């Protein structure tokens, strides 16, 4: 199967700063990829390159197109929320829907209206009279009414309350996502998206630190919670990271079989947040 997004040696410099440093990856159709990294890691720059909002060095292809040179064509197949609440404040909701309907061949105004009907957003209201949460709802209703091959969500729920975030991700998974679609999400609230992802990519300092499907993450990485008396034995197996919790030591291992660890304590698959911290501290130490 051909990759929907294909990057080979992609870099982006701002002056002397390398925001994205020679990264290569493929994203297959039908995946939900979580792009995770600390602030300033290059996530947004990488996404901007994928969306054709900035030029870059190297080979980058999205839906078979050069994103920067063919941005208009690309936007037929790709939709994104670059930042919540960036809708123009002066526009009236119904005119906004009319605009997108005329300009976007893959937009279903019925779907958007149906989704808005479940909210308290009046169609005749100017955007500036809506609360921040409502603007985000409106934006997401529009974006999810676009039948796109690739949906990019850059911090889609930043600053929104937990009820909204939960229902948004549920809706995203149940109503929007199917095998034909691909979603890339970045967020700092890793725990909230962990269970909907199929793939995860860690990025730090412009470089990819980890790029795996969640299945292989489960196979390759193991977390061990060991009692103090077994801790030294665990340390002998060269864990990626160690932290302590409730007086016990928690280790993250890469490529160590579960059988080997089973005798030393409680074994499980690490959470993405913990794995991220473990991977990053190891990378930075190196």
């Amino acid at each position, binding site marked *: 199967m051909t990759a929907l997004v294909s990057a080979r040696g992609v870099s982006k410099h701002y002056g002397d700063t390398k925001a994205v440093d020679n990264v290569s990856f493929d994203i297959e159709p039908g995946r939900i990829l979580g792009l995770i990294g600390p602030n300033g890691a290059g996530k947004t720059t990488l996404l901007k390159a994928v969306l054709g909002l900035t030029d870059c060095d190297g080979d980058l292809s999205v839906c078979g197109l050069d994103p920067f040179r063919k*941005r208009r064509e690309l936007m037929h197949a790709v939709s994104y929320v670059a930042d919540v609440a960036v809708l123009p404040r002066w526009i009236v909701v119904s005119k906004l829907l009319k605009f997108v309907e005329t300009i976007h061949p893959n937009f279903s105004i019925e779907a958007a209206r149906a989704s808005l009907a479940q909210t308290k957003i009046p169609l005749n209201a100017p955007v500036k009279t809506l609360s921040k949460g409502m603007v985000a709802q409106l934006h997401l209703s529009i974006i999810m009414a676009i039948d796109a091959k690739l949906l990019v969500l850059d911090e889609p729920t930043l600053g929104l309350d937990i009820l909204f975030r939960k229902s948004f991700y549920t809706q995203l998974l149940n109503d929007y996502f199917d095998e034909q679609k691909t979603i890339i999400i970045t967020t700092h609230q890793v725990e909230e998206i962990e269970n909907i992802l199929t793939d995860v990519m860690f990025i730090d300092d412009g470089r990819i630190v980890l790029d795996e499907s969640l299945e292989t993450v489960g196979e390759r990485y193991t977390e061990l919670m060991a009692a103090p008396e077994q801790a030294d034995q665990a340390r002998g197996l060269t864990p990626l990271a160690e932290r302590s919790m409730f007086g016990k030591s928690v280790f993250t291992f890469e490529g160590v079989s579960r059988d080997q660890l089973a005798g030393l304590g409680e074994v499980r698959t690490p959470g993405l947040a913990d794995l991220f911290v473990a991977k990053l501290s190891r990378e930075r130490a190196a």
Partner: protein
Amino acid sequence: MMARQWLLLQREIWEHKALYYAPLAVAGLLVFGFVVSFVTALAQGMPFDVAVVTLELTGAPFSVTGGAAILGIPFLFLNLVLGVVVFLYGIDALYAERKDKSILFWRSMPVTDTETVISKLITAVVAAPLITTAIVIATQVVLLVLVSLVLLIGGGSPVELLLAPLPFIQLWFLFLWILLTSSIWFAPVVAWFLLCSAFAKRSVLIWVFVPWIVLGMLESIVMRTGQVWQLIGERFSFAAISGLDFPAGINVDDDAALEALIKSGDFDVLGVIAPIKFLTDPGLWGGLVVTAIFLAGAVYCRRFRS
């Protein structure tokens, strides 16, 4: 394709309501001012026929310039408003969307930066003048009706005194022609506003004026010439007459002579429209080349600097 450009134009007008609010408000003020001044004249005890005379509409001989004022005043005032509105629109058009970050949304739509920038130029040089012309004509009609009523009440015949002597259909064509030619003549100026609004990180106004002031000063210091300022001065002073050609011997500044000419019936209003003079003016084509350069710069800024 047309539906897209039409929608982009509508979008501009949705956003910049001043494009029609401002001329409408001024038109309303003009009509209101006319009514108030007339009623005040009567209230101050001025006899009705004298009040009518103060409008320069009756009496013998009838003053054509007085009648033409009904057409001329809205045209003049609303064109000044148009200038201000287009200026404010131009410096805001590509700046506000970056300031409120809505550019992130607009650029998530399948619209190229070139399409967007062109729609903004068309809004300023075609849509805004057409809106203004429509409002000018509506205001003139309202004033003509009001003055006709006044004349009727005063016992005069509006047709004889007002409508027949004034070639106003021809004048409307003339107004439209002046507006459109001036707009195209001013296109490089609008394109410069757009470039500044796409380029400026903060104060657009500084970028609009300072480069030309500095350039002019440098020129006068280094080369002891004043080409830059002269060029700008010419651009502004030739705007209204670049598409007009007055017959030899006519002084457009001499009201009395002009009035006599119109009254003589020998003056062909539409005859001053000079498309060939307009289209063969190197200033027009030079201006359009500059327009294209500035627009390309604005597109570049929107593509690379957001």
